């Protein structure tokens, strides 16, 4: 679980950029979309400091809009720099994915062989 969290940490920023890149959105909606896509360990509070950092680094632009509950809600969009960051993340991810896939292409086969040998010995 911890290893999964560490893996997730490195990719969370890119996933958030993708969600915001799709449509202008706010913290809670981002966490719900991430959950809907299988990233269940992310709450609004987890991503809030990350959103603040991205905003500070001018990767995101934020505007406050009225909400039904009372406080104004912060909506995020990607800036030009943000769009470039998203594209860069995507390229890096594709490269990494290719690299990991190549490294692990025979892993499944090896595992199957180990299992078969083990059952034969029994």
């Amino acid at each position: 679980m911890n290893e999964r969290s560490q893996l997730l940490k490195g990719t969370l920023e890119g996933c958030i950029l993708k969600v915001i890149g799709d449509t202008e959105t706010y913290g809670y909606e981002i966490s719900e979309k991430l959950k809907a896509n299988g990233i269940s360990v992310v709450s609004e509070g987890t991503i809030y400091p990350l959103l603040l950092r991205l905003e500070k680094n001018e990767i995101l632009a934020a505007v406050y809009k009225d909400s039904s509950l009372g406080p104004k809600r912060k909506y995020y969009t990607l800036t030009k720099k943000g769009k470039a960051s998203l594209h860069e993340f995507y390229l890096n991810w594709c490269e990494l994915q290719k690299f990991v896939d190549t490294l692990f292409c025979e892993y499944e086969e090896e595992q199957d062989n180990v299992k078969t040998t083990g059952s034969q010995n029994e």
Partner: protein
Amino acid sequence: MSKQLDLKTNNNKLDKLLNVENRTALMEMVVYLRAANISDYQVELVRQDLLDMALRSQSRNEPLSGVIGSSYQSFCDEIIRNVEHRAIMQNFIQWLMILSLSFSILVTQDVVFSGYLSRVYHSLSLHSSVDTSYPISAGFLMNTVVIAGASYLIVYLIGKYTFQTKTMHAIFSAISKPKRFGFGFLAGAALMGYFFGIAQLDKFVLFSTNIIIYPAILLTFFVIYKINSKIGHAHLL
């Protein structure tokens, strides 16, 4: 109304919509954030976001800890790490504001409690000439520095240790009654010693100034405070 005050007033109104548990949690977080090197405006912006999160979790009947995690301090530390910090100029303006306001209050207090006003009243009632020279003692200067420093330290410590109040209360409760009495006695004695020292230092007049200068100093410091608060709001201190 300035942008910052407007936001603060609105946040205070929304704060009343929170339940007791969430209000306490939010108050602790805001107090902690205020002790960090973040502008008041930035704190109010974060507070607005936290209010949105808290009210939404409240409407879903979900505890706030389910949204921001069980360690509010870690959450706040993450926020502090990721927001814009006050620039040197903003810090300078903030300090100038605090010092000018403190000094204008302490100057007024010194004039009121020094007995000078009653002496003036006495002279006026006797139709005699009023002595306009006002002594500035070492005690006054010492007191000003100590009060300003202690006030800042108290506010800073309250903010810094706001999440440790329960632990501190437990530690304090664990101390035996005689020990607590001993600490109280020592604190009282130290305070008495301080007042005695100030009373002695009050006898050392460093220089005398014309009393008319005092309101002028007071006014100058108050004007500095007002100008700074305007600049501060313009730069969103």
